[in-house]
């Protein structure tokens, strides 16, 4: 049973909240300054292809605060952010928060599904390879992992698309809803059917690193004294793997999996692009290409929070599940 020390938890979360706050302020300021120093002109991006006179340009510029100093602009951005607003998206013409909410939920299902697939498959393959170290099964899994690890995600996506969608015709080419249908009318099965290929693509890279990590950890456990002792006590091989092996590698594996949120987010951008899946990844690319500064900054902040939460959970798992760390303050 996990006993939760409420006081300790509150202290822990309090510290983490302060760290997140500092992190967000720094990230928001730095990314804003970087955009200001980049050749992107928000005024031109806003106006697009419309032809305007110099005077009109100056008026818009003044309205947007291009005549202010960099310091004033950063301060303005941060204070608006503090009030909960991230501004208006130039592409979608709605508040950035709304765009992010909508796109992020779409991506979240994709990310959660592929994250779970990579966790289960990666851990399973890792245990198998580690237990069977040196055999052909281990070699096959290792080779598979090396290939995956050295292959770019988008390329895997393209190959899967070619094989399963074009040649075999099992899955649709892209998009999260069938063409000519409103997203409200999509059935669960239609939606799931379209999720399979992008989710598999996204999970593949995560599988490789988790498998290699799990394999390595299990091999270390196999070299440990307690593994030897369990053998000396007549426990069966798979019994030891189950009782002592998995018990000792599950925690680090879960931690690694939560820490991989950044790779997951990066992978989503590529996968959504390949499969034309309308999520946060596509929005990021669109915001970048079409100089939608508010949306881009909003996504930076959201992805920061996303990765931070992953790391926070990893930390908490260790602090509260591992008896060796849990015990320290209880005594």
């Amino acid at each position, binding site marked *: 049973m996990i006993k939760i020390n409420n006081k300790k938890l509150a202290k822990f979360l309090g510290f983490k909240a302060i760290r997140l706050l500092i992190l967000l302020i720094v990230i928001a300021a730095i990314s804003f300054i970087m955009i200001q120093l980049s050749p992107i002109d928000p005024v031109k991006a806003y106006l697009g292809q419309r032809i305007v006179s110099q005077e009109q340009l100056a008026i818009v510029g003044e309205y947007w605060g291009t005549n202010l100093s960099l310091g004033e602009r950063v301060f303005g951005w941060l204070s608006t952010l503090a009030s909960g607003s991230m501004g208006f998206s130039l592409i979608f013409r709605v508040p950035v928060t709304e765009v992010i909410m909508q796109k992020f939920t779409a991506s979240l299902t994709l990310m959660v599904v592929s994250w779970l697939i990579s966790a289960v498959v990666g851990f399973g393959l890792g245990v198998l390879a580690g237990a069977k170290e040196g055999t052909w099964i281990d070699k096959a899994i290792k080779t598979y992992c090396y290939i995956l690890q050295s292959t770019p995600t988008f390329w895997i996506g393209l190959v899967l698309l070619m094989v399963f969608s074009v040649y075999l015709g099992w899955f649709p080419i892209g998009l999260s809803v069938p063409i000519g249908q409103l997203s409200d009318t999509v059935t669960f099965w239609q939606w799931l059917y379209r999720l399979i290929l992008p989710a598999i693509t996204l999970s593949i890279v995560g599988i490789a690193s988790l498998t290699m990590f799990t394999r390595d950890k299990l091999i270390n456990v196999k070299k440990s004294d*307690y593994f030897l002792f369990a053998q000396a006590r007549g426990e069966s091989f798979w019994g030891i793997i189950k009782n002592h092996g998995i018990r000792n590698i599950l*925690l680090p594996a879960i931690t690694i999996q939560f820490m991989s949120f950044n790779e997951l987010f990066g992978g989503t951008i590529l996968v959504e692009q390949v499969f034309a899946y309308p999520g946060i990844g596509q929005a990021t690319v669109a915001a970048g290409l079409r100089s939608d500064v508010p949306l881009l900054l909003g996504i930076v902040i959201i992805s920061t929070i996303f990765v931070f939460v992953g790391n926070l959970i990893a930390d908490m798992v260790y602090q509260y599940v591992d008896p060796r760390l849990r*015990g320290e303050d209880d005594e």
Partner: protein
Amino acid sequence: MSKLLEVNNLSISFTQYVQGLNRHDSKVITDLTIDVDEGEIVAILGSSGSGKSLLAHSILGILPYNSHVAGEIRYEGQVLDQELKEKLRGDEICLIPQSVNFLDPLMKVSEQAIGECKDENEHKEKKLRQREIFDKYGLDESVDDLYPFELSGGMARKVLLSTALVGNPKLLIADEPTPGLDAKSVKETIEDIRNLKEDGKGVLLITHEIDVALKTADRIAIFYSGYVIEINNVENFKNSENVLHPYSKALIDSLPRNGFNLTEGVQPLDEVSGCPYYENCPIRLDKCEKNKPELIDHKGIMIRCFNFEEVNNGT
């Protein structure tokens, strides 16, 4: 009536690759012969790191894959092959390990003492037995839920001993049971091991602490450079007059109570063609350099030395 455990001419070597592809077989144990009877404690006394533990691993069938074993081990008269080892280990033959590192760091100690179970009923049965044994060693119920890192040195020792006893074994192999323990815990451990003997169990005690061997064992085998050079009764070790091998004499004389007489010299690391003690031996003969003495029976004492072979042949 056959002995509980008989080890005859056991040799263990490892294949190593040195400097690229040069294969090299390093012998760790050579021609080891020893036996343990029911209700008897036999100690194997040798310097640390000399490979004594491998004897234990060999009896339990947990040697690493690159090892080669020659010779024969018999358990109650039956040849102890890998199949029989796997059947008996943890059941009739149990290991008392060196340290708390031999326990799973993330498993409660009571569960570890219970071990692997087929079903709920077996678990319940073993749980009762585990509780009984923990009680016997003064470990109360709060200890059941502790993790290995929470145990003190003395408690860990008792838990390790308990893990071996849940299965009610006939033969126990204690591998360095006393390293790094305080005097009181060492005394308790010696006491506990002696009590096992009272229960009719055979104990093979592997140690590098002379004192522990002297206080615990009935017979002591001296392990030198991979060879057993002498097996003698514990009473004879009180005085260097009564032990036969020059190394055993030197060992006894080096004890504080016998005057701290140190003998120069080290154990050979590489295999030698003659007697392993030739370099340091004060009573060596010409043939000791090139010929290996066998372990022979001299008036009930097992000794590996040409000097006694001469005497035997002479009479």
